[in-house]
């Protein structure tokens, strides 16, 4: 009796195991939620396939808002939201939309999401929304979003498109934050508004930190040309580290 019981238990366990294996293999065929390919969707845009430095998308709004770190972070979050949601929505309706009018449909979907972001920012982060001025609106025409909608969401399911959206928006955000970090640090000696390099007084005696040694901020970093040059240097660094990205000409 007892042996029978244990044997049935064992067989049950085996069955369960088999089922699990079956389930796993089956789900691997259909791809589990975070399979290797899906993780690649998330990690690829961070380096090898970065939207800004490799795909050359979304530079329009990326540069003007990188004077300070805080607007850059807010902008990145806004883009993450708009892109993930936009990718999901477009991928859900991709078989319903006629090919001819897809661009207008995409623009309308993205514009509605951006209106949501804009209104939320105006309600809860009014100062940042003032600083970002028209650049929140320009998320609509951010080439990353349209580019990924066209290149990915129109041909893939919602979950993959969601991951692709998050990955690409994160790749965009990383460059934004790197550029803003250097511009705010070197341009105004602050990070997120805190004086990390010490306080600059009117005279050397009043100053603390680096300023007491005679350090001066490089105000040039606050002007728009430096954003371009900083991005150029970031690209230089990335490509000398990852030489397969080097262009022919």
């Amino acid at each position: 009796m007892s042996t029978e019981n244990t044997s049935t238990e064992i067989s049950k366990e085996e069955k369960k195991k088999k089922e699990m294996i079956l389930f796993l293999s089956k789900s691997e065929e259909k791809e589990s939620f975070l399979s290797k390919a899906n993780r690649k969707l998330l990690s690829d845009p961070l380096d090898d396939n970065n939207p800004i430095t490799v795909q050359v998308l979304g530079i329009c709004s990326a540069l003007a808002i990188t004077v300070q770190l805080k607007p850059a972070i807010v902008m990145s979050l806004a883009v993450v939201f708009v892109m993930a949601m936009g990718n999901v929505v477009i991928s859900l309706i991709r078989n319903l939309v006629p090919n001819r009018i897809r661009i207008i449909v995409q623009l309308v979907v993205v514009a509605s999401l951006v209106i949501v972001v804009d209104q939320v920012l105006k309600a809860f982060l009014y100062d940042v929304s003032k600083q970002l001025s028209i650049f929140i609106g320009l998320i609509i025409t951010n080439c990353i979003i349209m580019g990924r909608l066209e290149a990915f969401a129109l041909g893939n399911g919602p979950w993959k498109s969601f991951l692709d959206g998050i990955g690409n928006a994160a790749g965009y955000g990383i460059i934004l934050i790197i550029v803003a970090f250097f511009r705010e640090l070197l341009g105004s000696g602050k990070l997120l508004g805190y004086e990390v390099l010490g306080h600059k007084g009117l005279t050397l005696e009043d100053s603390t930190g680096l300023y007491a040694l005679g350090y001066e901020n490089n105000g040039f970093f606050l002007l728009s040309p430096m954003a371009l040059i900083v991005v150029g240097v970031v690209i230089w660094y990335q490509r000398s580290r990852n030489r397969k990205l080097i262009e022919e000409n």
Partner: protein
Amino acid sequence: MDLINLFVKSIFIENMIFAYFLGMCSYLAVSKTVKTAVGLGAAVIFVLVITVPINYLIDTYLLQAGALSWLGPEYASIDLSFLSFIMFIAVIASMVQLVEMIVEKFSPALYGSLGIFLPLIAVNCSILGGALFMQQKDFSGITEAITYGAGSGIGWFLAILAIAAIREKIAYSNVPAPLKGLGITFIITGLMAIGFMSFMGIKLEGNQEELKEKTVYESEEEKSDEASTYITNLDNE
């Protein structure tokens, strides 16, 4: 005088590319040869000249707070400005469709060489950026809106023409391998932007009769500048 001032300002001082980086994607992608750059630049001027005034009319008579008062006093309290993004982009997308059809009909060669980038004008940030800056600047009439559209279009055209010419020449120079292509283009654009900053000092002034209006004008200019030169504000903060 105001119009000329606005025109010159929108071409050089508030250049779409060098001051605000608007339309960078197509600027970088299409600037490999001068010929396609000229085609795209002309298309941008055309679309901006059309869409900015149309969007100005929509903004003034439909969207702004109290803009609907021409319908009757009971509509005066309606504020539809939150709809401006979607209205502007719809106008722009349909105008771009129109331009695409016209170009395809009358200049198939240009259509072929512009290829995918013509529909991308719809998502060229400089077009929507022009509309949104127009909204912030509170123009007093439609002629100002047209002037602003033409000026910013020409500014964009000049920028892409210049970078395309430089990129054609740079093919012959010995750029460090990791900087080739995109990297050096960014840095050159940065240097060109520094050059364009020298236009900032230009202030067009009227003759004697207009000088007395100048003070009024300057305060207005400061108002319209408030939004655009937030970088300097950030610096002061």
